[in-house]
């Protein structure tokens, strides 16, 4: 399939220092994974939108300090991760518990792409169980699958070694497997 020569992140972020369109391109590239990551944390659409907005506004503010090194994804997710953590602190809530608040209801003004939820079975179980994993295991899965980050980028965001991240992912998947497959098979 053909592609235009799309600028890479490093080019974009350098251009974004002076060019609003470049930041917009970067924004379009990352808004979905950042939103997904925030949604995975909150389970609430309006809060995910708030956190996504805060992340990009903070990124825009921090643009001038960017020196063009490191992964842009790690930078953005580092901001998002902190925004999510601050959010929980402000709510005094366990981040493991998705907030099913009023704002989880569909926005009447737009079709809700997230409408519907889990069916019974492995998907349902994985979704439910995810929120009861240990915080670091849950975090690596959220960054990996919801955020779409590479192992190295997760390591940068979490300030952990790549090898540790791999083990965390492996353990987290093993947790989910044990809960969602092994036990049901036994039963």
């Amino acid at each position, binding site marked *: 399939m053909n592609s235009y020569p799309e600028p890479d992140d490093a080019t974009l972020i350098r251009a974004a220092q002076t060019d609003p369109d470049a930041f917009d391109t970067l924004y379009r590239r990352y808004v979905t994974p950042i939103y997904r990551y925030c949604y995975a944390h909150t389970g609430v659409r309006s809060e995910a939108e708030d956190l996504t907005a805060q992340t990009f506004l903070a990124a825009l503010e921090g643009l001038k300090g960017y020196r063009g090194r490191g992964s842009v994804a790690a930078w953005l997710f580092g901001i998002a991760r*902190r925004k999510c953590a601050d959010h929980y602190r402000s709510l005094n809530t366990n981040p493991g518990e998705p907030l099913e608040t009023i704002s989880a209801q569909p926005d009447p003004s737009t079709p809700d792409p997230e409408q519907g939820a889990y069916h019974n079975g492995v998907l349902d179980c994985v979704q439910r169980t995810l929120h009861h994993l240990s915080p670091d295991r849950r975090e690596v899965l959220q960054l990996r699958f919801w955020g779409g980050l590479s192992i190295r980028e997760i390591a940068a965001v979490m300030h952990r070694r790549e090898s540790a991240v*791999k083990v965390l992912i492996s353990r987290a998947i093993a947790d989910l497997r044990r809960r969602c497959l092994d036990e049901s098979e036994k039963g």
Partner: protein
Amino acid sequence: MKAKKDDKSLAQKLNTCMDQPPAESDAAEAAIVEALRLSAARIEPAPDFVTGLSIRLRHQRQTRDLAARRSTVHRLLWAGAAAILVASLTLVLPHLLGSRGLPPLPRLAYAAGSGPAPTGLLAGATLTLSAPLPTAPKKMPIYVAAAAPVPATSEEAIAWALKFGISNPKVYRNPGESRSIYVLGDDGQQLIFRRFGPMGSIDYSNDYAVADAQGPSLTFEQASQAAVTFLRERGLLPDHYRTEEAEAPGGDSPTRAIRIVPVLDDYPLVGNHAGAYVLVNPAGQVVYASLNPLTFKRGQGYPIRSAEDAYGSLSRSEEIGSPFRLDVDLTMPTTDIRHYRPEPPAYTPGQSVTATGWIHVLVAEGGNEIRARLTARDGTLYDLTGPRVAELAAPESGFGDVRARGIIVARTGPNRWQMEVTDWNFIPASNVQPPACQVGTFAEEGTTAWLVTDTEERYRLPDAPEALVDGERIEVCADEWPAGGEPVNWWGISSPPASEQRPVPVASSSTIVVVEAIETPQVEAPFEIGQRIELTGAVYATLYVNGDARRVEAYLDKDEADEEPPYSLAGPTELLEEIAQHNRLHVRVWGRVVPAQDSPNGQAIQVERFERLWPQERLQGFPGHVDLERLEGREVAVFTDHETGQRYVLDQSLEGYWTSSQDPLMDVEQAFVSGVVHPEKTYAGLPVLRLVSSQAGQETVAATSADQFPVDTGPQVVDEAALLPAALQGTFIIDRVELAYYCEPQPAQLIYAQPVWVFYGHSPDGATHFTAYVQAVAEEYIESAGATTAPIGQGE
């Protein structure tokens, strides 16, 4: 101890294990990974939100950068686009129109969002076919799509508006969205023309018609007819089309959603942006329409796989020919939580109002007229008027949230008001606080309702839902919590408190998602089974509690061993619990290597005894800030403890796991971090601090002591009782199969419409519906999976 000669190989294998799709993992892991991928892939931000935030970011940017320069990026993109277009015209058309054989078509990839493709969900699932498989033609032409013209100038936009019957149309520009044209009439009708690379979109809305939306919904046939007539009268109806029911926003809304699906050669065009989406109100008026106009040029015919062949690939989950896209619609499990929203405000003209929200500003072209609309958090819209509105469009004013005060002039919609602004102020983005929800008891005293929190604070709840009863436990969400009995401007109440509810396990299952057994990657073990070893490293431990039962998962992370995975620790629970109390600290363990199925390398250390490596080492908290400094020839992150003035080099920055100047901690005047000072490691004469956690915000800036932030020592504790197993059984039923054209316009790609088989299915309980798309062109005419992408025709 075995030499580390295989460390690199081990790391590579681990990389492979983690980075590759589940096809290389074992069946159970693949099912879990697939569920995770699907969970993520089904989450998409609302298009309105994405566009709105984009606009907001542009405004924000304008305040910082008044002299915006022309886009170098867009020059790059357009130069690329022009090059590709020329290449396409040169290379593609001769092949499409000529008779030199059939070049391979692009292999379709998952197109919804940026997440990984959810292929494999159906792999191994039991599929039952309850619909006849249609007969396919031997050949079908492909189509090359091109964007139909969308107005690019004000004059063209006005001409279109008149064609739409918009009264007294006037062109506006959004200061932050320069390539879009807004046309607003004085009758509530609006058109927005947007351009995305080679694509254009048209959005039509009719606010006044929305205001009149009352009564029962039209029938599907009536609404379809209204939608078709609307598009036909405006020259936007495809030559051949079919109408389908679409999902209407708002659930109970009487508005009906119709999708107009273009038909090519008797086959529908499918894809995210195919056709038009039209909303029709009970009065038969079109209140909203959205479309990406495309024209199609017929190309050469390609051999088509039979439906039986495609179904065979689907049911056997063959790697080649399996779905390139899978849409799943799942039913929300019911819960007993009741949610309440406040009634929309009922103002009277002349009433003073304060509203907070984000603002959308349009400036009339060639004039000074400004239209500003404020969207409050509760969804109420305010059309702002008055001389002060001009200030809102001034770029130096910034674009955070706005708090506007003014006088209500008139009601302009069901939840929409005209407000004359008397005063306003921006709320900087950094000061926008996330919503706060509080839990407590609902109390009624006479006609006054209260939330009495668990800490005995009392907040007055105006217009409390009548269904709430005295003593009921509730959760209330609001932006601000005024003290002293002032009414709380709440925007959400749940009962029982939503945040206290665990996810509700759903009863019996009838859906099966079993993935075929596939090869498990073997990660080379670092030791020999039975080998006695002595290891040192930092402990990472998680304590799982389930009633009286406890178990510990712990591993040891060696210092300076980046490519070496942490070692799993095994042993009696009591011993592991003891080790877990030294979480994040260094220990020395003695033990024996044993097999461990759950461990990535298949081994664990059966711990026989351990000791703290450095008894003085501890996890502690520090208030301070981080700077980047160049020390001993390299840039490292240095944390300065504000209480003692002591400076530390952050270990993560020495190891390369620091996002350098981009780390969020860099922007903070004072953060609070917890970490472990390495007892022996120094860098440039400074002690080394391994960061464990950090937080930053207003509360950390104001903090004066580390004591204000407790440090969690010991292991992470997980409530294992909350981990519920789920059943896996049942089948999916395929209830419809059809041949269609798939077209997914992307700004950065050539647009093709090529044949696909579409399988519609559901679970027997109806809770899950899915649509699977399989490429229909015979496999030998599709690019190989690993092929370098190239324009059609280059392959010859």
